[in-house]
């Protein structure tokens, strides 16, 4: 991987978590032993929509080994808890209270000495349901006479700042409706030579982190509670638990071991409230480990239905874009309103439209709740936008690359919100991908005459969560080594290594002198979340600031001790330099404390806002992430069978911090994108999910990989990122599906508008010709 010159402490192949993970000794949640722990099992709804008339647990309580059973009676009359919770709206309860709203909705839970006893008892709980018709499609759900998923939705007192203006629309299934307007859309269309209108569809999918969700909760004799959880945002979960259980956050301690993948599936409360409630009732530590099937009921990626209308001038200038985006948020709002908002921001793609009218609706249905998924609403809107870009190019007889380059954002261009875009290497990304794909040259002719090849491109822009907070602390030890305290969750993305590298590079010490504690909310400072591709930018910056804070303290000691003006001291290569002398950190500490010992603490905080502190300008996103992808496919004309031969992905990373981690995120994201593009979909029949297992829900395997996936990091530094770095976790996923669909159309003149792109759809499309 080509990297610009920079001081680099993280060498290729060096990751702090590798030794443990390669030898089987890294402890994930399910690997931890806890004395006296009860195993929990959850009884889940077999129906998609019904009133819960009564729940009778008397038989369950007779099963030997059962310690406690938790039902709606405990929620309603129990221990003085707040029954309703949820990150945006309070529409969730610990177990179903009035209705069940999707298959798999938790109805009761059992704690027992063994998992077998807990499961046996859960199956003996008698529940009487009174069936209601389920709504399973956003198009039905928004109809006026649709049955309501929620009769009322409660709004929390302190919600997220960026979602404050969004409210549920009463007596409908519309959870939120976000509107984005620029210019005058009707006038815009009137000024266009061509208007295109298409409808695009994406199915519900699931993250399938190989590690299922799990949680252990153990109350302490003094009323405090310790939780170990598979969460990507322990501080948000802590707040939610504090609200539910009416406890100060200081009494709730959440520890997060290494996660076996997250991809968005482990943000916001999942199984934690139920585990904690069960532990409270059982008066014993309780552990709940979800089965693979239960994971499919816990969180999904939003299905979407998108109507997109685009007006283009005679010379190919993109002029007016109207879009209606319906995102299926399932039975609970979860973080769906933000997914819809993010989707809206980028429904005009990375292109300079003068007139924009976007309506993004987050819509309730009787499916499992949809939440965050790598790409967060943008992979949905980009599927529509980037597919339509090629539809337009074809109709106007323009090269899709040229047409994109004509309309794409440049430095300082105005975004749909009216703000100016800075540090925006999308043109560069597209150019590099086109070059890598040998754009302009026809694909090599396949040896087998029954096969044809084609190429396709796609580009994107995405926002990160703004405003947000990251606080960090680092501890300098007497020997000059450093402990890092950060709440960024290591879930495979290599954040421990990136964070340690930023500290090591700032202090000028080697990476092996730096240790990262891991997440413990009693110890590490606050961080909003490990998601939204935000950690390197925000937490990385907080750690850079914490390291600079330490440098300053060390220089101050030297300045006082040796009576040199502070400005005449500096820190370099792990030493404090002044006059002709150089003192290493250890000596400075020894001099300061007068003996071997002592601790220095460096602090750093980053808080972003929707107003740029330097310029006073509006900033919807503390940085924008942009990229482009290209695919070459080969299709069997007799069967429609598709093979991706090559994929190239260029991502504006700002600055590479750890070359290996960067490569892994770019390639890994692209592979996740291939699953979404080619195979993955959750399928329902009459409200029942028919494929909640890894046989029927198809994941990409080694044999499905292209011969080559080429990661291309593009470095356009950001003024507020550590060393100029930006987030990279989601970018490469987003262009994969549209670039493949565009390549398919290039090869066989078949336009697929609903994901996944399957052989069957291609075959039927070819038959129609």
């Amino acid at each position, binding site marked *: 991987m080509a990297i610009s010159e920079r001081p680099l402490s993280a060498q*290729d*192949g060096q*990751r702090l*978590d*590798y030794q*443990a*993970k*390669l*030898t*089987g*000794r*890294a*402890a*994930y949640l*399910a*690997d931890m*032993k806890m004395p006296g722990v009860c195993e929990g099992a959850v009884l889940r709804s077999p129906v998609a929509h019904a009133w819960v008339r009564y729940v009778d647990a008397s038989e369950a309580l007779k099963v030997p080994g059962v310690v406690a059973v938790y039902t709606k009676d405990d929620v309603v009359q129990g221990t003085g808890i707040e029954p309703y919770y949820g990150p945006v709206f309070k529409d969730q309860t610990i177990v179903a209270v009035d209705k069940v709203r999707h298959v798999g909705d938790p109805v009761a839970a059992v704690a027992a000495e063994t998992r077998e006893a807990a499961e046996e008892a859960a199956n003996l709980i008698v529940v009487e349901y009174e069936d209601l018709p389920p709504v399973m499609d956003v198009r039905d759900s928004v109809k006026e006479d649709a049955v309501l998923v929620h009769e009322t939705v409660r709004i929390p007192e302190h919600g997220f700042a960026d979602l404050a203006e969004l409210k549920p629309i009463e007596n409908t299934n519309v959870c939120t409706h976000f509107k984005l307007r620029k210019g005058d859309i009707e006038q815009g269309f009137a000024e266009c030579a061509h208007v295109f209108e298409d409808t695009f569809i994406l199915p519900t999918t699931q*993250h*399938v*982190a*190989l*590690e*299922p969700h799990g949680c252990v909760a153990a109350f302490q004799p003094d009323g405090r509670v310790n939780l170990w959880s598979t969460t990507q945002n322990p501080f948000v979960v802590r707040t939610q638990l504090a609200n539910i259980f009416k406890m100060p956050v200081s009494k709730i301690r959440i520890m997060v071991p*290494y*996660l*076996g*993948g997250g*991809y968005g599936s482990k943000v916001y409360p999942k199984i934690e409230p139920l585990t904690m409630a069960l532990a409270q009732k059982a008066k014993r530590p309780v552990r709940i480990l979800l*089965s*693979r099937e239960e994971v499919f009921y816990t969180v999904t990626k939003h299905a979407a239905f998108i109507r997109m209308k685009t007006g283009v001038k005679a010379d190919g200038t993109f002029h007016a874009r109207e879009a209606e985006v319906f995102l299926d948020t399932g039975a609970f709002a979860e973080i769906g309103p933000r997914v819809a908002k993010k989707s809206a921001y980028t429904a005009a793609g990375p292109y300079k439209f003068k007139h924009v009218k976007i309506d993004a609706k987050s819509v309730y249905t009787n499916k499992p709740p949809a939440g965050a998924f790598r790409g967060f609403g943008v992979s949905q809107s980009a599927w529509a936008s980037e597919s339509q870009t090629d539809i337009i190019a074809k109709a106007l007889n323009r090269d899709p690359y040229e047409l994109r380059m004509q309309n794409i954002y440049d430095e300082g261009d105005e975004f749909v919100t009216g703000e100016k875009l800075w540090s925006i290497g999308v043109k560069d990304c597209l150019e590099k991908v086109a070059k890598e794909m040998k754009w302009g040259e026809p694909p090599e002719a396949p040896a087998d005459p029954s096969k044809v090849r084609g190429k396709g491109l796609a580009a994107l822009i995405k926002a990160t969560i703004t405003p947000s907070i990251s606080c960090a602390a680092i501890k300098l030890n007497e020997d000059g080594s450093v402990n890092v305290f950060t709440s960024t969750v290591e*879930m*495979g*993305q*290599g954040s421990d290594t990136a964070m340690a590298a930023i500290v090591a590079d700032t202090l000028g010490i080697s990476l092996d002198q730096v240790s990262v504690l891991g997440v413990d909310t009693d110890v590490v400072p606050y961080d909003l979340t490990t998601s939204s591709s935000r950690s390197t930018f925000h937490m990385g910056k907080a750690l850079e600031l914490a390291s600079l804070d330490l440098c300053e303290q060390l220089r101050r000691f030297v300045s006082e001790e040796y009576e040199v003006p502070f400005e005449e001291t500096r820190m370099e290569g792990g030493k404090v330099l002044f006059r002709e002398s150089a003192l290493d950190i250890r000596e400075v500490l020894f001099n300061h404390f007068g003996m071997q010992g002592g601790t220095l603490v460096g602090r750093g905080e980053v808080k972003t806002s929707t107003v740029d502190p330097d310029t006073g300008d509006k900033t919807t996103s503390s940085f924008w992430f942009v990229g482009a992808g290209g695919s070459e496919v080969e299709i069997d004309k007799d069967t429609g069978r598709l093979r991706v031969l090559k994929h190239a992905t260029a991502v504006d990373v700002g600055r590479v911090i750890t070359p*290996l981690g960067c*490569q*892994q995120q770019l*390639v*890994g*994201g*692209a*592979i*996740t994108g291939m699953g979404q593009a080619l195979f993955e979909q959750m399928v329902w029949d009459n409200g029942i999910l028919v494929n909640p*297992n*890894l*046989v029927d829900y198809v*994941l*990409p*395997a*080694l*044999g499905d*990989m292209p011969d*080559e*996936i080429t990661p291309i990091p593009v470095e356009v530094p950001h003024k507020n990122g550590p060393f100029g770095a930006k987030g990279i976790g989601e970018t490469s996923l987003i262009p994969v599906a549209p670039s493949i669909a565009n390549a398919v159309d290039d090869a066989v003149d078949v336009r697929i508008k609903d994901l996944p792109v399957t052989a069957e759809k291609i075959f039927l499309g070819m038959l129609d010709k």
Partner: protein
Amino acid sequence: MKKAITMEVNGASCQVEVEPWRTLLEVVREELDLTGAKLGCDIQVCGACTLLVDGKPVSACSVLAVDADGHRVTTVEGLADGDRLHPLQEAFMKHGALQCGYCTSGFLLTAKAMLDENPRPDDEQIKSYMGGSFCRCGCYQEIMQAIRSVAQA
């Protein structure tokens, strides 16, 4: 009614009493504290639970512990020779063939079994032998590179 079984695990003989319905994965993880193998799907498709029994890969989530009675079991904890990593572990490290690491034990053991059977597999053979393991972080390209590098060494 537990049954006593004897297995050779990572070279050491061990005796455990197990209920007849316990899977090999449960017994290795819970009784022997060897937690490198993971539960991913529970139905023999994801490969996260792979262990070697008499050198052959099996999905330990779907094998009863009693059926391993008298057999030789290798787990990822038994791959390294003391502090010296197995060449496959070295290669996975060098090529970055893991991110979250949840699939790693399964991939390493399956690759070891393959190379023990066929020290010089070509790409197609690697893809077909390793086809029963999923890496959801998307490390397939690096996994191929790592295995190739050992196969060609």
